[in-house]
């Protein structure tokens, strides 16, 4: 590993440490977010209300530096609201100003979409293009956002007045990370009683910003991807994982009370698998390895794959129970070599 990558790795680990200092008991979620940052993938956070999803994303945005915009998803939000907004100025003249997406131009580094499932499918479509192509078309011209990274969150408590993300939009997210409360009583007490965690703004403000130059991330990500090359055996292992996600029965995976023939409606997409490998390479880089190992794939398999596998509607009401079992079953059934 060359010196530059080593230096960046040290910075990345410092960045991770800082966030872990801010967000307690979420080491794994933080690690996944860090991987997504250096793999240049978009992240969707899911979890209960008040567990720290927004704080985590704000902490990451603060740590990364660069321009930052956020928007709250509401049922009447339309795509145009992201691009521009109109108003009457002090002289009574109508004015058109750039919306959250266009306001920062190319320097927009982090776009945070809060409660994404409250927005309508039209908004999801716009976001789909932003995430996939890092550009939009407005006012008869294309706008590029080369450094944009989208973080979105949704809570899983409310289902009313929400719009489920379409499969195509979910597939654009590199990772879907579940945030749960820490299980450790000591951490919970710390979260409740330590006043440091009561004021989120000052908590986020403590994070050192700009150590990682956001405008260099694309180049760095490319270097990471080029420096780590998988072996043939690892490619076979990844292929087996992929095939098992499409046809688990063929690989001897059996879940309780499930007709395995009928379980899967659609397995992971090729784009999903490429995200898996990108993220796995970043994991290897963070572990200071130039060799991509099966454990790198295993480390991010759940977060990169679970939202890309679609269950048959008859099993979808048990999705929250079946999906982790299926992912575990795949990882515990596929051997390497």
């Amino acid at each position: 590993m060359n010196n530059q990558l080593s230096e960046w790795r040290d910075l990345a680990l410092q960045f991770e440490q800082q966030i872990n200092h801010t967000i307690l008991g979420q080491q794994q979620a933080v690690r996944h977010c860090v991987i997504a940052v250096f793999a240049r993938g978009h992240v969707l956070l899911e979890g209960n209300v008040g567990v720290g999803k927004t704080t985590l994303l704000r902490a990451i945005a603060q740590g990364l530096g660069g321009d930052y915009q956020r928007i709250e998803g509401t049922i009447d939000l339309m795509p145009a609201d992201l691009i521009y907004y109109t108003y009457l100025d002090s002289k009574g003249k109508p004015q058109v100003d750039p919306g959250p997406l266009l306001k920062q131009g190319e320097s927009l580094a982090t776009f945070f979409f809060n409660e994404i499932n409250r927005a309508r499918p039209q908004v999801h479509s716009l976001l789909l293009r932003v995430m996939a192509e890092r550009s939009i078309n407005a006012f008869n011209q294309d706008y590029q956002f080369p450094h944009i990274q989208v973080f979105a969150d949704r809570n899983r408590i409310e289902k009313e007045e929400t719009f489920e993300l379409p499969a195509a939009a979910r597939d654009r997210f590199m990772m879907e990370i579940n945030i749960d409360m820490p299980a450790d009583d000591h951490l919970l007490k710390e979260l409740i009683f330590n006043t440091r965690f009561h004021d989120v703004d000052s908590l986020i403000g403590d994070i050192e910003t700009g150590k990682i130059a956001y405008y260099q991330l694309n180049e760095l990500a490319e270097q990471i991807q080029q420096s780590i090359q998988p072996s043939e055996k690892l490619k076979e292992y990844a292929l087996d994982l992929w095939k098992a996600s499409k046809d688990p029965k063929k690989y001897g995976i059996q879940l309780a009370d499930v007709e395995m023939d009928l379980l899967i409606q659609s397995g992971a997409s090729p784009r999903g698998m490429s995200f898996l490998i990108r993220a796995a390479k970043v994991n290897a880089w963070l572990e200071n390895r130039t060799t991509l190992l099966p454990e790198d794939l295993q480390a991010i398999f759940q977060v990169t794959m679970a939202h890309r596998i679609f269950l048959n509607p008859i099993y979808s009401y048990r999705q929250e129970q079946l999906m982790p079992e299926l992912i575990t079953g795949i990882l515990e059934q596929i051997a390497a070599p």
Partner: protein
Amino acid sequence: MHFTLFVIFICFILNSCSSTLSEPIISFQVQTPRPFGYVIGDEIKQRIVVDVRDGMALQYNSLPNKGKVNRWLNLNKIKIDKNKIHQGIHYQIDLTYQLFYAPLEVKMLKIPSFTLQFKQFGNTTKKQVPYWNFTTAPLRELAIRKDEGKEYMRPDSPAPLLDYTASYYRLLVSLLIAFIITFYLAWLYGCLSFLPKYQIFKRPAKRLSQLPNTDIENMLRVMHRALNQLNGKPLFQHQLADFYNHHPSYQQLNNELNWFFKYSNQYFFSTNAPVNKTDSNKIKELCQHCLEIERGKR
């Protein structure tokens, strides 16, 4: 008053000179068993109990001699017990006769009498043991005639067997319990080497010995497969701690297992896989050590 005292004194003197004191044999008793129902070969026990005055000694030669008494009677055993008692000496003489008379009908016989002799200061006192009558019966059935088509002699009917069903079932249950306990102990101590659980590394060890030392890839695969089978799912290096929780006896191979996984990772997933001549031996050694743990020898 003087006269009364004189009479009492005379009576005391006379009492002291009474015959009971001068009698040399205080008591004499012959104890015999039932006097009927004897057949050829039966033993008859006769006990003579004699209490004699102190100083009287039984003359042992006055007892009948051991051996043949007459044509049909044998004296098999003579046992004499001599004990000191308050008034003198207590003799208990046990005589065991055996009958050899085969009568054709019920017949009365007698054990002959004999005279016991006791000696004291050269004087001999005699006491006769009277003869004793008893009846003996034929052992063979003489009333049934063979020419009438009846069986002249037949063996006794066999003794009825005791019902041993309950004991038999108890034995079976006990054996079953003993077997289960033995099986359980053998399982605990890892002696059941025929179980699949104890054969995970048996075949791989054999297979590894057959593979050429240069075929590292297949050696690694064989070893990985065995470890996966033991773990119940694919085992990777980062899962070793969890593996040791379930199989603590393999903790002692931590260094070897870590080397193996590191080597395997390098071999399969690194672009520059180093191959050393001794690597195959190390893999074989690891398998052998695993086999020893599996058999409870480590």
